[in-house]
């Protein structure tokens, strides 16, 4: 993934609560075997409505999305993160996220910023005025041209990965010794965990 330290620009004042990943990207778009091009299907049912914020020219190309509580709930589909990224969004600001979505976001270089509802309400106003919002991961702060400044918490490991664009798989593969040590211990104390023979019938026509 690409490193991300700061995301600044206009924000889409979406604000809806309990937005599930079926809304972010409906099931028919999950049939792809690629990560690319999912922006076309992003928020499809909402974008079918006239006057929706996603197709409002005032927010064209905005890199920030402002949402309500429990954003990204439901299905684990990482396609939701890929779709948002494909729309050009690199930061989401909401009071809370589903556990799986926030993990998926981070792994794709999208900042899932958590701020309280009062801050969200204020940022919605700023976004609706078409003013720029500035998200700084290094200082863990969100600022506006009106001197608003909100600070946010983020897991230090996630911050480190985002700032450096780290490949988590490569990081873990570097822990081979530890994994092997665990595996030998596991084989000794809980050998039954390793499936012995394949008893299930295999009749692939």
């Amino acid at each position, binding site marked *: 993934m690409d490193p991300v330290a700061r995301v600044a620009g206009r924000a889409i004042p979406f604000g809806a609560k309990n937005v599930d990943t079926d809304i972010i990207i409906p*099931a028919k778009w999950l049939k792809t075997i690629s990560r690319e091009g999912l922006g076309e299907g992003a928020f499809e049912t909402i974008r079918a409505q006239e006057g929706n914020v996603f197709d409002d020219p005032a927010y064209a190309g905005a890199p920030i999305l402002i949402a309500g509580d429990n954003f990204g709930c439901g299905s684990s589909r*990482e396609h939701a993160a890929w779709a948002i990224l494909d729309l050009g969004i690199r930061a989401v600001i909401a009071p809370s996220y589903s*556990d799986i979505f926030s993990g998926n976001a981070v792994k794709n270089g999208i900042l899932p910023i958590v701020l309280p509802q009062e801050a969200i309400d204020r940022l919605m106003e700023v976004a609706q005025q078409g003013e720029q919002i500035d998200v700084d991961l290094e200082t863990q702060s969100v600022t506006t041209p009106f001197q608003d400044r909100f600070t946010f918490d983020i897991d230090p490991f996630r911050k480190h990965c985002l700032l450096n664009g780290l490949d988590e798989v490569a990081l*873990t593969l570097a822990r081979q010794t530890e*994994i092997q040590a665990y*595996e030998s211990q596991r084989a000794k104390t809980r050998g039954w965990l390793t*499936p012995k023979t394949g008893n299930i019938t295999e009749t692939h026509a």
Partner: protein
Amino acid sequence: MASKPRTLYEKIWDDHVVETRDDGTSLIYIDRHLVHEVTSPQAFDALRLAGRPVRRPELTLAVPDHNLPTTARRDASGGKIPIADPQSAAQLAALEKNAPEFGIRYIGDADAEQGIVHVVGPEQGFSLPGTTIVCGDSHTASHGGLGALAFGIGTSEVEHVLATQTLLLQKSKSMEIKVEGQLGPGVTAKDLILHIIGVIGAAGGTGYVIEYRGPVFEQMSVEQRLTVCNMSIEAGARAGLIAPDDVVFNYLKGRPMAPQGADWDEALAYWRTLHSDPGAEFDKSVVIAAGDVEPTVTWGTSPEDVVAIGGAVPSPDSFADESKRVAAQKSLDYMGLAAGTPMTQVPIENVFIGSCTNSRIEDLRSAAEVLKGRKKASNVRWAIVVPGSGLVKMQAEEEGLDRIFTDAGFEWREPGCSACLGMNPDKVPAGERCASTSNRNFVGRQGPGARTHLLSPAMAAAAAVKGHLADVRELT
């Protein structure tokens, strides 16, 4: 020094820590990985691109389920019937190719063992108590019914598990949901979990692993426990689990991939230690009175929008919170419902019995019991039963359940995820209602514009007979 009492979650967590880092994240070993065709192609591609092998292929099981049509898959001479949708076909073909390429066991689309991954795992004895189980699917929480720590992951994590057999995780908080008393007659595991989600909310479990406790769960069969744990994610929880006991051990003994002989004895001794110690502390505790639970249905577009079947569509004004009022009004508009309408007056055009929540043999028996000697109402246009696996289907046919369903006007289908999310051709038309035993009533979930009412298999059968949502207790 006596060790501190631990919760079941803490015990499983502790036994899977490879290492804990200074920043508090832990590298957690994964015992079992289920793979299906939708969330894995990009992960296998990434491995290929980086030249990385699968670390422990024998700990992974691949089964196609989401895209498969539920109509016949083989012609009279045993040849594959081509899948009409080229994208679905390509995704299925990718799994069929990726699994053997990476040395992973693959259960094919026409094998008797094929089915929904969350039905297949327990059925084959692949899913076991005290194990960590993951899958690129949020309903992996199901396997918690066996006393496993099981949760859904994204595709990047699927890649991570394939390459390293581990995940980097922050420990979740723990929540105890204690159900006191007994469920009334006609009230099922599905009604209970819908009720629980109504109480704690769709985000009530975010950041938590839930342990369901109380005599109600001890008396449940394994299949009922799988139903409860399955919908933990609908309350936002990372996972849900129930302490394993003899009911679970008896269920698993002799299953094809379960430990055998001396291995079984060793496993059993370990499994018997898997329960929260007396005095173990939970970060949050919720108490539910079983006697309060009625046969339950959903009225809106979030699984928290539940109401007892004897109740009515709520008025948006009845919600204290402004944003909830707005959301409720939107839901009612989408669902085409007016506040105050008794739920039993909501007409139904489609009935879906299936999904990883309710497609096991006991679910089918429970629906068939209501349907026996009855027919679906004339306004019910489409009613289908989709067994959770080929083995469930065979068992049901042995018991004659298929005949009860077809005599009642249902279609008897091949196993898969089907109309739960309509990635295959099984969809509910826009503007029509579906009484569905699945797990999500989200906008557009069963097809664009489709209106979903979640309920138990017995309640789905009652709705089919009556042609509207109905109280199953009045039919039996």
